[in-house]
């Protein structure tokens, strides 16, 4: 392998250029202001102070995390049974079902989200059916529900695939063993199946929560102007307002929050991992 190690240099250089440099630039931007013609950048913490002292910004941050959490919980509640069902099928059926799950992902996310606008808007299919049943009156589009629906719809496959993978890796003899030792099917699920699928659940949560908390397109399309999230705010600062420094600061804050949350999730997972538990 050593002979080939030099071959990796271009890749490392490429990754550094394309990944690390932009990150560094964002960090630099977040700690500076635009300065003047003599000194182009000056160090400042103003951007951070501005974010944390404005209750509107904090509200938007809170709202973003909340909706991402809701999305994740919904995806987990919907995704686990589906993944469980798929994992119990024969291998051929499994492959077919996974194809069905991933099929919508072949179509561009923008197109799919636009389709939901059509379905949810006044006179759209979903809106009409629901109002016929007397379940919905008035506007469906541009509500929190619409944003949540769009997010769950887009991110659910990630959750299903992760859980299904960990479930189908499980040795079925373990279920026999559990039943043999006196566990009812429900107890077997709680004591064996669920703990063993936990790594898949954690991966699923990560893959759903991260894009959900920073997404800006779905809230923009399905939430209209009504439902402003942190992703939209960053986009706004960069594109509409032109405050790159403040935008960068928000991005960095988001990154730190996400990192903390993920570390928390990993720690919970590690505590549940096999054989490490203490004797009761």
């Amino acid at each position, binding site marked *: 392998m050593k002979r080939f190690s030099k071959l990796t240099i271009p890749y490392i250089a490429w990754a550094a250029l394309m990944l690390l440099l932009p990150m560094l630039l964002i960090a630099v931007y977040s700690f500076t202001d635009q300065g003047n013609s003599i000194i182009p950048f000056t160090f400042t913490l103003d951007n951070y102070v501005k974010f944390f002292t404005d209750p509107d910004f904090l509200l938007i941050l809170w709202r973003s995390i909340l909706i991402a959490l809701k999305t994740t919980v919904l995806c987990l509640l919907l995704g686990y049974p589906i993944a469980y069902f798929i994992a119990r099928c024969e291998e051929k059926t499994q492959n077919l079902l996974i194809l069905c799950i991933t099929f919508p992902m072949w179509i561009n996310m923008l197109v799919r989200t636009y389709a939901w606008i059509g379905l949810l808007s006044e006179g759209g299919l979903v809106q009409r059916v629901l109002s016929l049943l007397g379940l919905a009156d008035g506007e469906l589009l541009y509500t929190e529900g619409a944003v949540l629906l769009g997010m769950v719809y887009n991110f659910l496959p990630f959750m299903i695939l992760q859980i299904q993978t960990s479930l189908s890796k499980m040795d079925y*003899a373990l279920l026999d063993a559990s039943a*043999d*030792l*006196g566990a009812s099917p429900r107890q077997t699920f709680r*004591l064996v199946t669920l703990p063993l699928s936990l790594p898949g659940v954690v991966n699923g949560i990560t893959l759903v929560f991260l894009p959900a908390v920073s997404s800006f397109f779905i809230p923009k399309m399905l939430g209209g102007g009504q439902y402003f999230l942190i992703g939209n705010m960053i986009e706004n600062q960069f594109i509409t307002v032109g405050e790159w420094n403040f935008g960068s600061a928000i991005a960095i804050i988001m990154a730190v929050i996400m990192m903390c949350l993920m570390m928390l999730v990993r720690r919970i997972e590690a505590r549940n991992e096999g054989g490490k*538990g203490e004797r009761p």
Partner: protein
Amino acid sequence: MEQKKLIELRNIVKSFDGQLVLKGVSLDICENEFVTLLGPSGCGKTTLLRILGGFLDADEGSVTFDGKVINEVPPYQRELNTVFQKYALFPHLNVYENIAFGLKLKKMSHDVIDQKVMKMLKLIGLEGFESKNTTLLSGGQQQRVAIARALVNEPKVLLLDEPLAALDLKLRKEMQYELKRIQEEVGITFIFVTHDQEEALTMSDKIVVMNEGEILQVDAPQDIYNKPNCRFVANFIGESNIFPGVMLEDYHLRFDDHDFDCGCFGFKKNEPVDVLIRPEQIEIVKKEDGKLTGEVLSSLFKGVHHEIMVETVPGTRVTVQMQLIRNQDVASEDGNEMISANNFYVDIEDVEHMDDREIIALSNAQAWNPHTDEFISIAHVEYDLRAEEGIYPVVFSTGNGTRVERRIHVVNQPVVRNERANEAVMAFNFVRSVDEIMESQALDTDLRTWAGAQGWKLSDEETSVELYVDYDFEPDEVKEGVYPVTFETTGHEFKVYTTTHHEEGQEVGLFFPPEAIHVMPHTEY
């Protein structure tokens, strides 16, 4: 000793995808017994165990446990526990938690669980391992944990599904004693599934021999070994010499052309039987003193004893001449086609069945393009054969007129008959090129084909007898010339264990007492 019946299986039938795996199995298992289900892979022993454990439902029949029919009882309510083939330890739990799994489900208090688990760890000799990760244990240790996890629930029956199959030989032997010790110590019924006859003999109180979904014999290990009730059991357990014989009357039988006294009775007069003599029950003596005489074929040193093969009835053999010639490929005038064929021999009786295809096959006639190596079909075969001994010309040609002339030898080939062994063999002389020998991938098979060698039973011409090929040349460096090739059947061979050495080729006598002869009803294979 009168023991209480714990499990009664009655007429259990099970099929998978229309294939019958268990064909109506009935079996009683008593309390405190070490029972082994023994049989080759696919005999249905694991299926039977899974039906007992409740993981499979029988199509027909009843499972009675402690006086109650338990067909409908799910596995988690049955009073038996299983040690699975690959242990199936929970990877997310440590050793302690694995063993405590069943007890926690029974909502026992912590200190009771603690006590019981510690007692089990002591029984299996893994004290101090309780917080170890099970995936980091060795195979033998995982095995012990699996046994402890099952036993801690104090089941009335422990089911063990080939639990030693994944261990290496030395560890397997250790675990055999260990399992027997644990069974004696806890005093419950063990039902043990294995395909290893030695394992079964070592550990069991009772062996159940199964084959093709049926129980063949249920007996104590000594009885299974000394008094197998059919050829399959005799063959499957231990080493054996088995011959067809005829029961003349009670205590008298005939096999290998000799009459013998034996301890067996209860057969019909002149009933065909299978005769079993174990290798260790035969003694090698001087030729004059033997009940049978034969020639030592081979002698292998096996540590404590020598394993000696003695042939009492020689096989049937035929030797033919193989003539090896140089390549005689013929090229066409323009050099674009090559053709080759061999002279060959046919029996007078077969002449009338000859057709073009058979003649091409027997002469191995081929044509090809030497530039591209593509094969060209042989378009014409001209010959004039009569059912009389003699040599007849045959001409093979392609569509483009490239031709080669060869000879067909029509001969009256004698059949070698061996009335004593009830066999006949036959083969023809043949002609091949040196290259064909050198290029052959499976020379024995090719030699048999080229010589048209065949062997059959005199009593039944449809039953063929396997022929062994013997020759005295080096296939890699063979030259043109004539070589003898011998085709031979195996004779009657006795396997004998002795502590003395005997030279190959030595004429010896075989002696065995009447009680060494065990007679079983004849089964066809």
